[in-house]
């Protein structure tokens, strides 16, 4: 909330908040225009998800997962993936529970776990070998991870591809997590909103598909990230009926239904892409190709400015080590972490915004991550052009 006020200032090149300034695909906008004309689509639909949408989701994910997914019992449509996280946590987590959160983490995980009365237990991704050129270099220490599990551990929240680092967890890494979930009879809440945004050489693997995991995993997806329509606020939870039914109970006691016209338009968009899932032109793949070149351009610009980007294997964020610039901010408010101060300084002096990484950390690790800031690169060319101008002139103004 704090940093989104910056978005209102047009003189600042905003690479902070994770929202695309590129247009959603035209057929997605067209489908929404079509539904506006249909009267009954302006009234309530099925609470747990508009029938044509849950049907489309079940088809798409059946194809991805290679298993049967019942649209009525295995899926819940929510107000964004945010709403899915909330419904899952409210449904399955309570006082006395512990929930493992991998740092850095999408910032809502911690307050949501706390709101449910449970205790967040953090474990950081650590840069192996001191080298951080790629998101793949950031790993969990298996022994450290195992030490976080105990009899109170109710769930672990997994986010792959990862925000903010862009890490795409490998099968082996997921297996380590899965083994622990099975051993300790723990749930896995798998936030996979960036599932389609994986770059060359990487594959998104669903932890729910690992042996023994379907029955203990809730997988979360997002229309906003899939179709570049964050303002539609539609997401979904997919999992076994005996878990999803509790999410449905939360949903029927919190907002009951999601908007009808948006769900119908989304369903139609899914059908269009479902039919071409074996075709490289499918938006699920074409978007990630588009973003890969933006990623590469962004990385190049940052390096030229003397910054150290961590190249993400997935997602549309990139973290950058700013300590290489040695900007002295010691005279500024000492209580604030370095990255907060750096971002404020960068906004004021460079008219470029980003998000400080310590916003994504628990209290113990803020020091570890305070030399990093996060850039969002799902931006149109003119935005990246404007960022290029700033970055190219960076060293001329530094003093």
């Amino acid at each position, binding site marked *: *909330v704090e940093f*989104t006020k910056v978005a209102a200032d047009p003189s600042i090149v905003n690479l902070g*908040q994770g*929202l*695309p*300034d590129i*247009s*959603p695909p035209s057929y997605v*906008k067209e489908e929404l*225009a079509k539904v*506006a*004309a249909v*009267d*009954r*689509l*302006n*009234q*309530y639909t*099925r*609470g747990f998800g508009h029938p044509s949408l849950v049907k489309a989701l079940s088809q798409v994910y059946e194809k991805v997962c290679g298993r049967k997914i019942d649209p009525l019992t295995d899926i819940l449509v929510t*107000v964004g993936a*945010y*709403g899915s996280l*909330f419904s899952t946590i*409210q*449904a*399955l*987590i309570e006082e006395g529970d512990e929930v493992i959160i991998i740092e850095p983490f999408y910032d*809502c995980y911690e*307050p*949501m776990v706390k709101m*449910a009365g449970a205790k967040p237990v953090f474990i950081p991704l650590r840069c192996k070998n001191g080298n951080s050129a790629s998101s793949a270099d950031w790993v969990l220490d298996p022994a450290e991870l195992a030490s976080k599990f105990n009899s109170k551990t109710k769930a672990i929240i997994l986010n792959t591809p990862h925000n903010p680092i862009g890490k795409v967890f490998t099968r082996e890494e997921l297996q380590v997590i899965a083994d622990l979930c*099975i051993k300790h*009879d723990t*749930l896995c809440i798998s936030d996979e909103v960036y599932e389609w945004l994986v770059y060359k050489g990487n594959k998104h693997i669903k932890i729910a598909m690992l*042996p*023994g995991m379907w*029955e*203990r995993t809730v997988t979360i997806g997002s229309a906003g990230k899939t179709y*570049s*329509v964050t*303002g*539609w*606020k539609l997401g979904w939870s997919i999992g*076994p009926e*005996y*878990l999803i039914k*509790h999410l449905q*109970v939360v949903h*029927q*006691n*919190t*907002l*009951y*239904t*999601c*908007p*009808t*016209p*948006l769900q119908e338009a989304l369903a139609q968009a899914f059908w269009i892409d479902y039919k071409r899932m074996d075709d490289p032109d499918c938006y699920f793949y074409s978007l990630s190709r588009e973003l890969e070149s933006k990623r590469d351009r962004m990385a190049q610009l940052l390096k030229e400015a003397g910054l150290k980007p961590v190249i993400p294997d997935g997602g549309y964020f990139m973290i950058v080590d700013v300590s290489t610039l040695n900007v002295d901010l010691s005279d500024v408010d000492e209580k604030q972490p370095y990255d907060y101060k750096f971002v404020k300084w960068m906004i004021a002096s460079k008219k470029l915004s980003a998000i400080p990484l310590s916003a994504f950390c628990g209290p113990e690790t803020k020091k570890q991550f305070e030399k990093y800031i996060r850039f969002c690169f799902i931006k149109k060319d003119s935005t990246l052009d404007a960022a290029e101008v700033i970055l190219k002139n960076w060293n001329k103004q530094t003093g």
Partner: protein
Amino acid sequence: SFKSFTHFLSHSLQAKMSRPVQARRLEGIDKNIWVEFVKLAATYSKVNLGQGFPDFPAPDFLTEAFRRALGGGNHMLHQYTRAFGHPPLVKVLAQFFEKLLGRDLDPMTNVMVTVGAYQALFCCFQALVDEGDEVIIIEPFFDCYEPMVKMAGGTPVFVPLRPNPPKDGRLMSSADWQLDPAELASKFSERTKAIVLNSPNNPLGKVFSRGELGLIAELCVKHDVLCISDEVYEWLVYDGKQHIRIASLQGMWDRTVIIGSAGKTFSATGWKVGWVVGPDRLLQHLRTVHQNSVYHCATIAQEAVAQGFQRELTLYGKPESYFIQLPKELQQKRDWLVQSLDGVGLKPIIPEGTYFLVADISQFKSDVPDDPNSDEPYDYRFAKWMVKNKGLAAIPLSAFYSEAHKNNYTNFIRFCFAKEEATLKAANDILQKWKQEKTSS
């Protein structure tokens, strides 16, 4: 090794979690009337007067606003807007409610947009009710209040509207259902955190009078209790009656959260745009809940609703105002349904507001005999039988009562009359035919 054996075993059995999975906050709140009755209506009904939504279209100016927003070329309307409410919408809501409440409102702190009034209610209970708190709920009530209070750890305390049938034999009005002042006062204790007020009331259609609201307000002030005021049907009042906002009464602004709904205001229930209006000291806590549960509401619907309100702002009080035309139209439909029901021997309670009407089914009971072994209240069984056998969907009144009081009023069902003429005529045909079958059998 033993480890790999159990590993293999759990894999091959695809074992579910062996410990209880769901949180205790879900206890007792898993049943939901709508899930069941919406399914029944979808399966059996030829005429659906059950769930509360219009079967006539949303007004042209609203759908036009939606189309304009989409066609306008601003593709950023497909991205996140301000979390606590799209600026054009909160601004026009503030302007509108300033007029209605007679006080200055800051769109940023006195207004918040929610995913329907439903989510506004959720934010209220989560933000303001804690374990150990009591919340007074007036029966009959929109069914979600009770589970929401429970989910927040609170204790619902019920107080009934009691029917005082008119002596002169005329049809009952929703005004004849009243709170007993002494009974209401007795429900307030030092643990009372809030009272939920719903005026105009769903399901009865009661429009609380100034005197009745004054009584509630006095008790709120005396016991320092909050008021959660569900006013979603604020524009749907008939017979020249006036909807009075309890927040405008002495001592009430600072302790009241007002809830509104674009779905009901603009006949577009599927858009799920609602709002809260209230003092910052209360709304700040609703914002905390909102940012940790939903965060943003869909942008484009908010943009279109803002346009709708702009139009109404300029037409306020004029005959072309939707807020004048809609209740005029609905009053006619109400009167039509009242006649229709009365004509066959079902006794309607004439609603002063909302688009619901409750009718006494006593005369039609012979088709659905009493069953002392049934665990369902009589009206549930009646409504289910009616939709399956007559194709007419309605909702049993006991759906709007607490568990303890479900058997207090089992001869009533609720009809929704926000329907096209053709739908109401078709309902009449079913009822007439049914009546004929009864008299000839």
